[in-house]
C-alpha cells in the first residue's frame, strides 16, 4: 500500500506493508525498514523502529492527528490512486477558515491580491476576542466568500486561495 503524507508542507510517499512481525516501509523510494506496531487501545499504538520505542496517540477520524515524542502533528494522508478526488475537493491550504463560530470583523485582502504565508488576511471575533487569520501558504486570493459582520460557523470558510501564477 502507498500513502502520500503531507506534514509541514513537505510531501512524503510511503510504501508500507504488513508482515508477520509488524510492518515494512520505505519512504520516498528509500531503503526498506521494519517497524513493530502493537495496538494498545482504539487510539494508541506502541511502535518500535529498530530499537527506538515510540508511544503514539492518534486520531485519523477527521484530521489525521498524532502525538509523537512530546509533540502534536496534524497531517494529510492520501491514497495516491485517488489523487483526482483530492484535486477536485481542493488542495491543502487552499482556503482560510475560522476554527470557531464567530463574526467577521475585517477582511484585509481583495480578490486577486498576492499574499504570503503567515500574512494576516482577516480578523474574526470569537469567544470575546479578536482573532487574526493567516494565509496558510503563499498564493493569490481566488475569492472572498464573506463580508464584515457575517456570522461564521465553526470551520467556516472566509477566503480561497489559488497558486501564484
Amino acid at each position: 500500500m502507498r500513502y502520500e503524507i503531507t506534514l509541514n508542507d513537505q510531501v512524503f510517499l510511503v510504501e508500507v506493508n504488513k508482515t508477520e512481525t509488524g510492518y515494512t516501509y520505505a519512504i520516498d523510494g528509500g531503503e526498506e525498514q521494519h517497524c513493530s506496531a502493537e495496538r494498545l487501545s482504539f487510539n494508541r499504538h506502541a511502535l518500535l523502529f529498530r530499537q527506538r520505542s515510540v508511544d503514539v496517540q492518534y486520531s485519523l477520524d477527521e484530521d489525521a492527528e498524532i502525538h509523537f515524542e512530546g509533540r502534536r502533528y496534524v497531517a494529510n494522508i492520501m491514497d495516491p490512486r485517488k489523487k483526482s478526488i483530492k484535486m477536485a475537493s481542493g488542495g491543502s491550504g487552499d482556503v482560510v477558515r475560522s476554527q470557531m463560530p464567530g463574526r467577521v470583523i475585517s477582511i484585509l485582502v481583495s480578490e486577486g491580491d498576492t499574499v504570503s504565508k503567515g500574512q494576516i488576511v482577516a480578523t474574526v471575533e470569537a469567544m470575546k476576542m479578536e482573532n487574526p487569520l493567516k494565509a496558510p501558504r503563499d498564493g493569490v486570493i481566488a475569492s472572498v466568500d464573506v463580508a464584515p459582520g457575517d456570522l461564521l460557523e465553526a470551520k467556516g470558510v472566509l477566503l480561497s486561495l489559488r497558486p501564484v501564477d
Partner: protein
Amino acid sequence: MSGLPKKILVANRGEIAVRVMRSCHELGIQTVAVYSEVDRKALHVRMANEAYCIGPAPSSQSYLRGDAILEVAKESGADAIHPGYGFLSENAGFAQKVLDAGLVWIGPKPFAIQAMGSKTESRARMVAAGVPVVPGGTEPIVSPEEALSIANDMGYPVMIKASAGGGGKGMREVSKEEELIPAFNAARSEARNSFGDDSVYIEKRIIRPRHVEVQVLADQHGTVVHLFERDCSIQRRHQKVVEESPCPVLLPETRRAMTQVAIQAAKAVHYEGAGTIEFLLGEDQSFYFLEMNTRLQVEHPITEMVTGVDLVQAQIRVASGEALSFSQEDLQQKGHAIECRVYAEDAANNWAPSPGLLRCYTEPSGPSIRVDSGVYEGSEVTVYYDPMVSKLVVWGENRADAIRRLKRALNEYQILGIQTSIPFFQALMDDADFLSGVYDTGFLTQEKMNQLTAYDDSIDPDLVAALAILALEKDLTLKPAVSKRQHSKWKWFYQEKR
C-alpha cells in the same frame, strides 16, 4: 462551634469545582454540583454526589444566576456554598444572600469583598492602613487639565486606569506629556463602554515590574497568617500564564516586609478565609499594593505545594468557625513550585482559542506532579467558558529541579483534537531569560512570542512511517466503503508550532 458543613454546594464548574469537591470528600462532606445544559457530562458533575441543572450554556443564564443556585441549595439541603474563583466568587450581593439564607459562605464577609472590590476604595483603605500603593491619586480625575497636572507632577511614564476596571480595559500607558490628553480621553471612553462608568485615575508606572502576590489565610478569631508569595509575572494580555513560588528574585528582607504588609492589608478589612494581596515589585525591591482578590486563586496549588497546606480544607474549616490549626511559625516555604495553565489556545496564532473535542487526553504522572483538570478524554472544550484545559503543577527541591520536572511532564502530556499552549510552555522552559529568573510582566513581547513559537520545519522520518503504518492498519480493519470515504476526504494540515 457548630462543626463542619454536611453538604457543600460548589457554585462553579471545571477544574476548580473538581478540586474543591476533592477536599470536601476528604472531610466526609457531601457535594452538590450545579451545571449548565452543555455541562451535563462535565467532570464536576460526575465528581459530585448530587447535580442540578441551572440553565442554558451562557454563564449569565446559569453559573451567574445566584437565585437559581440558592434554590438548588435549598432543594438539596446544602448547608454551605463554595464559590470557587470567577463567576459569583467576588459578588458581595450574592455572598450576603447566601448568609441571609442561613447558609455558610465559604469566603470573606460581604463587607470585605465590597471594600476590596473597588480599586478606588481599596486603594484608599490601604493608604489608611499604611500599605504602600503605587504613587498617584485614587480619586477619579474628571478634567484633562487636572490629569495633565497630576501626571507632570508624578513624572512619566504614568498609567491611566479605569476605577471599575479589570482585564486591561480602560487602561493606558503614557510615556510623555504630549500623549497624555488623547490617552486620557480614550481611556474614559473605553471605561464607559466597558463598565458603564467613566471614572479613571492616574498612577505612576513602575519600570520593569514583577507581579508578586501574597497568599493570606484568616480565621474568624482575628488570626491572620501569610503563606508566602507567588510570582505571576509571565502574562499575556494581563492574564497570568505561568506562576511560581518562591519569586526567584525576592530578597528575604523584602519577603518579610511584603508578607507583613499583606497581613496588615487583610486585617484592615477584617478579612476571613483565603485571600491574595497582589503587589507590583520594582527592580529596586520596592513594592506597591495592586489589589486584593477575595477568593481562592487559580494558582493556589503552587502555594499548597511549597507550604503543604490544603487551602480549600482551610477555607472550609475557618468558614465553619474553626481557629487556624497552625501558626505563622509552623509555615515554611519548602522547595520550588511552578504552574503552567494549559489552555485550548494557539499561542503561535495570537492565542486564538481552539475549542473542540478532546480526541485523546493523557495527563503526565509521577513524583511531585499534580494535574488539576476539569476535562477527560472524550470531553469537549466549548466556546462558552474559559478555555483552560488543566493546570500542570510541579514541585522540585529547587527552581532548576522544578523546571526539569516540568519539561518532562510537558512531554508526557498527550492531547489531540485541540491546540493547546503546551508547545509554548515547552519552548518557554528552554528560554534563557525565563531560566535566569530575571523577567518582568512585559516578558512576553511580540518578539519573544515569535521566538517561542518559531516553526521547527524538520520532520522525523519515523513520524512519517508511523502515520503510514497507522493509516494502513486502519484501512485493513475498516470496511472498504468507509475507508474510501476516509481517503477522499480533504484534510487541513499543519504542525503544531512551538
